[in-house]
């Protein structure tokens, strides 16, 4: 079946097997291998992308469900010459080791920061109404869907906090 996807600002028409996950369309059909397959089961977060602006596990979604969708992947947020503040902070803070979960961590963080800006509480937020205070614990709770076996967690969160400060200052 043919579907249309807008990915990182570009329109793509893809003829997909009905069984093919959105993740495999990105990786196999479009050679966008920045989005990683860690478990294919929604358990690790390595395949996190933005679907119409929200983060999802692209392994858990069939491509045919998303005809006409707008997708952002790691390839769409920064370039070699102009890295996204999150990308820059991950490099500076050593917010990774092997790098395999990294695109998922960054895409998840990007959406998470938007969620917080929009006032979404998390499971551990003190208040459901107040603007979330993105403490280290709050970031940890909101990022716990992204596993990192190298266990770069402390520096991933430092990277996110640093990037957030820079992004807010730039506004």
């Amino acid at each position, binding site marked *: 079946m043919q579907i249309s996807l807008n990915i990182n600002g570009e329109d793509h028409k893809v003829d997909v097997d009905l069984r093919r996950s959105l993740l495999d369309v990105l990786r196999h059909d479009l050679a966008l291998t920045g989005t990683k397959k*860690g478990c*294919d089961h929604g358990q690790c977060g390595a395949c996190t992308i933005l679907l119409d602006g929200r983060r999802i596990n692209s392994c858990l979604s069939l491509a045919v469900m998303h005809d006409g969708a707008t997708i952002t992947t790691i390839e769409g947020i920064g370039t070699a010459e102009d890295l996204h503040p999150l990308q820059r902070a991950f*490099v500076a803070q050593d917010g*990774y080791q*092997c790098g395999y979960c990294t695109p998922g961590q960054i895409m998840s963080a990007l959406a998470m920061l938007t969620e917080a800006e929009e006032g979404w509480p998390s499971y551990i937020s003190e208040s459901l109404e107040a603007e979330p205070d993105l403490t280290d614990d709050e970031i940890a709770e909101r990022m716990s869907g992204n*596993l990192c076996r190298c266990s770069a*967690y402390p*520096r991933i*969160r430092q990277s996110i906090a640093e990037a957030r400060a820079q992004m807010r200052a730039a506004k």
Partner: protein
Amino acid sequence: MMAKDQATMDVTLTMDTAQPRRLDQMVQGVLGGAMARPEGPLKVRGAATYAAEHAVADLAEGVLVRATITKGKVKAIDEAAALKLPGVIAVLTGGPLLRNPAQGQASEAPEQVLPEVHYFGQPIAVVVADSFENARHAAQTLRVTYTEAKAEVDPETASTVERPKKSQIETGDFDAGFQAGAHQIDALYHTEPHTSAAMEPHASIARWDQGRLELWGSYQMLKHNVAELADAMGLPESKVRIHAPYVGGGFGGKLGIAPEAVAAAHAAREIGRPVRVVMARQQVFDMTLRRTETAQRLRLACDATGKITALAHEDRVSNLPGESYSEPVAQGTHFLYGGADRRFTHEVARVHRPAAGSVRAPGEAVGMIALECAVDELAEAAGIDPVELRLRNLPKTAPKGDLPFSENALGRCLKEGAARFGWDKRGTTASRRDGDWWVGLGVAAAVRTNVLEESIARVTLEPDGSATVATDMTDIGTGTYAILSQIAAEMLGLRPDQVTVKLGDSDLPKSSGSGGSFGAQSCGSAVFLACQGLRAALAKRLGTTEEELTLKDGTATSGNRRVPLADVLDSGLSATGHIKPGDTEDDFAIAGYGAHFAEVRVHAFTGEVRVARMLGIFSIGRVLNRLTAESQCHGGMIWGIGSALSEELQHDRRDGRIVNHDLAGYHVPCHLDVPQLDAVLLEDTRDDQANPIQAKGIGELGISGAAAAIGNAIFNACGVRVRDFPATPDKIFPHLPFDDWG
């Protein structure tokens, strides 16, 4: 020019005697600093290519099929039915397919036993199709019939138990010494099996070109992997090339060639087309090597002053029949503490569970849990502070073999760590409460044997004054790209960004590979030696000696002569460095040391444990890159949190299969399980006996003892002594102090 100078430029060193601290005399000032990884911008853009991601034309997709019996034979596979399904190209069984991955540094093929089945989950076939979905469907619906045999799967009751002779050691008279102690501890500890669970699943792309096999894989030790793959496929090593420029985590899980590589190579040869085989996450659990479960009996006795006089560490581990590897559980115990009367026994139960092998810090990762908790128990029994008890038991020489220590900063780590952590605020057992939570502190020593492995690297000074480092070494997240560029830059007086590091290609000079925490020091030493060769050649061209030559910022200085490096290079210079282990490893006890401190909170009603604070302080000789070294410490400490609190493979008691074979069932720590950590490196220590760059391993030291600090903190918090790890709430909550039930 290059050929003529070559013989004098290549440098080989066998590590027979202490080496001078040449790197301390270099002036570029880039080694040891917190330099960001050069490959970082690729990783954060998703542009670093991992095994399954290399663009190879005309790829067919292979999916592995696993055995659904524990022991017996594959009687028949309905290949004809599978071949009728859309897109299916071939169904392959038998032949070179592997039972399980090669053990680390095996350099030969692992067992190839089909049609026999030796464990539940063993790969028995690979189905190849034109798409992943078609291959997966055919693999999942493949009809397989078996002849089943009875299998033993429980290590406790196994009828075959081996006792390797070299691991049964008695010194003095343990029984008498133990009886004579003023205080005694006799405790049984258990640890559950672990798995590496690297985020990148095992994956291989195989392509044949005129009888030569090219494989893109996710592997840690390419020279061994080439030998293993060649042996498995019946090829000379010269006919195999492996690429692994980026490896998405290893931790031991990618030391040896694994079933997917041979399946891809076999299938590609059979169908005459490149084939990619990627293990599903469940297959990674089923078919790659796990860390054995352990049963450990610790007996410790001390005199009235807390001095350990007798020590016994006896363990039972398991493995599949035919695997020579067994977890060296007591490895750290041999030289950490003294005591004249000592006993070590080691048993290997043969069971039909998935094969066991190396997972981060084999030996110390689990042996130190039992040892360091038992030492805490001894401190409690003797009424001595656990830091103080350890300080009273620092041996002057290594108890095993009475060898001198090359460098041992355990005492310093314990003292400095205690001061930094606020150890003096530790209360008596079950004395601190914060609302519904008990709060407690724990300590444990860290130790990890240090190994140097033979390693070769080539360093080339290009005509423009930049440099290229080439070796088949891998970077599995450890920071190899960074540290090799720093070592070369420091030695040659360049900015690190003027050094290009080429790794992960088996056609390059053969290195140690990544494993056993020996990669940085072994490969780093080879790069250091190659640079020494280049420095000597440059000195000769400038009419001076290597000692008199200063290289800084691309300029060579000797006496009052200064010349831009590029001016003396002509067509370039190339040298090979070759390090070999030598007498120092027999003459000295060489290890990394450290100490872990943990603060935990134990929920008074549920027994849930949260790590609130953790500090690890380590002595690893020269620090090559503070940033990546600290990241390695974090990784080890967090693995310690996992093994302390949540990680356990659960085997079905009937058939030995791994029940929780995914990341929802096997609980690696997640963000919220991990607080900000304090990792401290003693930056002034050097180990002159270890290697010419005086650096020791760090990737495994950080896990060794970490879980014990958490176990000991649990005891201090609430008085519950956990001896079966992980310390899940069910093991704590029945024993919590009763008066808290309100």
